[in-house]
């Protein structure tokens, strides 16, 4: 064979390797296109463009889509099952049955301004069950007594300690705020103890929290609205925070207050187990206890139907905090058929944007 003919064969083979014919994506995948600021600063269009921007912007847009599906679902969208109750066959009833929404978040988010977004959701009864950690309770109440301030991540710890300032990320909470909290809460615990002893009241974390929401009586508090709208707030780890410190001191000065966590596990699991015929949707900000507790409750009904996780944790260490929704599917905490998204983003950025495009937009439409 001539040299040039050999070269041609080699070239053809290399060409076919490097320039492998690709499968066409047109029609199956969205094209990537970001926002064009030549159209001016249009925030609505900017948010809409996230879907086609890629990476976590696209994930956030997907999450918004899943939450909207969660909020739009009605029982009338499902075929009537053979074994359903007579009441469930009625069309108007089926149009009224909505998805049950579980909202979970970690304490730091309540120290942040996300607390006010949560308050909006509770104020308008847009969520059905809340699970959080102890700071998620006290930080909301303390903000009604004294404010939290913006600081900086780099403020030196020893210097802050000498000034009586506690740092939460780049936020600052003065010691004095916790003193005000102590002065406010101890008499309430005294009263609760009296009711326990004289009226046989059985306190659980969720009941205690509802009482605190009632006592704070402040429209800026999400717990106040949760109490008013009968949204149960679960916090099985109630002792792990300033509130726990208060319970500890109260047990010396006026002992005997009992808080029953067994009753509350019945209640939170019951919220999932007895949700039917409603579907369930879970929105979880952060990881830790709130994330697992909500997923576990939904396991009792063979899994949630919609799930949105917004957190910055990663799965490489096997932590539950970092686990993607698909890991929860393996446990039966989320259904295999469920619509799920994880947004790898700090919830202080992602959640207000998500609420803007979901919960808050729906009320706009109603007005």
């Amino acid at each position, binding site marked *: 064979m001539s040299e040039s003919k050999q070269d041609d064969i080699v070239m053809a083979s290399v060409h076919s390797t490097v320039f492998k014919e690709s499968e066409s994506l047109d029609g199956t995948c969205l094209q990537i296109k970001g926002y064009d600021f030549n159209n001016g600063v249009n925030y609505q269009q900017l948010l809409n463009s996230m879907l086609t921007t890629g990476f976590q912007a696209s994930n956030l847009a997907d999450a918004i889509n899943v939450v909207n599906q969660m909020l739009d679902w009605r029982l009338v969208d499902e075929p009537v099952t053979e074994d359903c109750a007579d009441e469930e066959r009625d069309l108007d009833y089926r149009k009224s049955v909505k998805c049950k929404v579980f909202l979970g978040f970690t304490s730091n988010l309540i120290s942040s301004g996300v607390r006010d977004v949560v308050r909006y959701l509770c104020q308008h009864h847009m969520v059905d069950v809340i699970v959080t950690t102890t700071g998620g309770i006290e930080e909301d109440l303390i903000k009604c007594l004294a404010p939290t301030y913006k600081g900086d991540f780099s403020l030196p710890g020893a210097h802050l300690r000498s000034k*009586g300032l*506690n740092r939460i990320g780049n936020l600052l909470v003065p*010691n004095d705020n*916790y*003193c005000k909290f102590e002065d406010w809460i101890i008499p309430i615990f005294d009263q609760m103890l009296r009711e326990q002893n004289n009226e046989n009241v059985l306190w659980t974390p969720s009941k205690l929290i509802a009482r605190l929401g009632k006592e704070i009586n402040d429209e800026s508090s999400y717990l106040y609205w949760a109490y008013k709208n009968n949204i149960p707030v679960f916090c099985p780890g109630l002792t792990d925070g*300033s509130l726990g*410190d*208060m319970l*500890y001191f109260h047990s010396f*000065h006026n002992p005997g207050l009992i808080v029953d966590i067994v009753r509350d596990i019945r209640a939170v699991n019951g919220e999932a187990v007895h949700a039917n015929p409603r579907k369930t949707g879970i929105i979880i900000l952060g990881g830790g206890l709130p994330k697992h507790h909500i997923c576990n409750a939904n396991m009792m009904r063979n899994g949630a139907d919609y799930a949105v996780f917004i957190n910055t944790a990663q799965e490489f260490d096997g932590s539950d905090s970092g686990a993607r929704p698909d890991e929860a599917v393996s446990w039966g905490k989320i259904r295999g058929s469920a619509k799920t998204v994880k947004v790898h983003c700090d919830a202080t950025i992602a959640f207000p944007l998500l609420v803007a495009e979901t919960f808050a937009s729906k009320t706009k439409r109603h007005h």
Partner: protein
Amino acid sequence: MSDEEHHFESKADAGASKTYPQQAGTIRKNGHIVIKNRPCKVVEVSTSKTGKHGHAKCHFVGIDIFTGKKLEDIVPSSHNCDVPHVNRTDYQLIDISEDGFVSLLTESGGTKDDLKLPSDESLLSQIKDGFGEGKDLIVSVMSAMGEEQICGLKDIGPK
């Protein structure tokens, strides 16, 4: 008050209060404090500064001066605690009755018969043996908050 005032209380009480208030932050180890209405000797004090748990607090561990039981309390350091008046008085031992009461010689020359033998075994056997041997014994009686107990023994010499 008027001259016709009747003194019903015994000389030891004379209307004086059994405790006095003292700021928690000033109470030190080896002092005394009332915990759960019991007079205690302070064996441990630790203070936690103002913080997430609220106001600065003092954590006291005390031993009940009569029963020896360990009691603890946590009090905000700015609050007042009750401190018991603790008195020790020495009396000469005159007699031990069959039902375990002692007869003591008071300063005024009368007898004090309302005290029982102490429950502490070593002190009890010291008193019984010493008395049995005919020794002159002086007992120390500790009193606080209306309660009294023999807490010590002195041998003042051979008979």
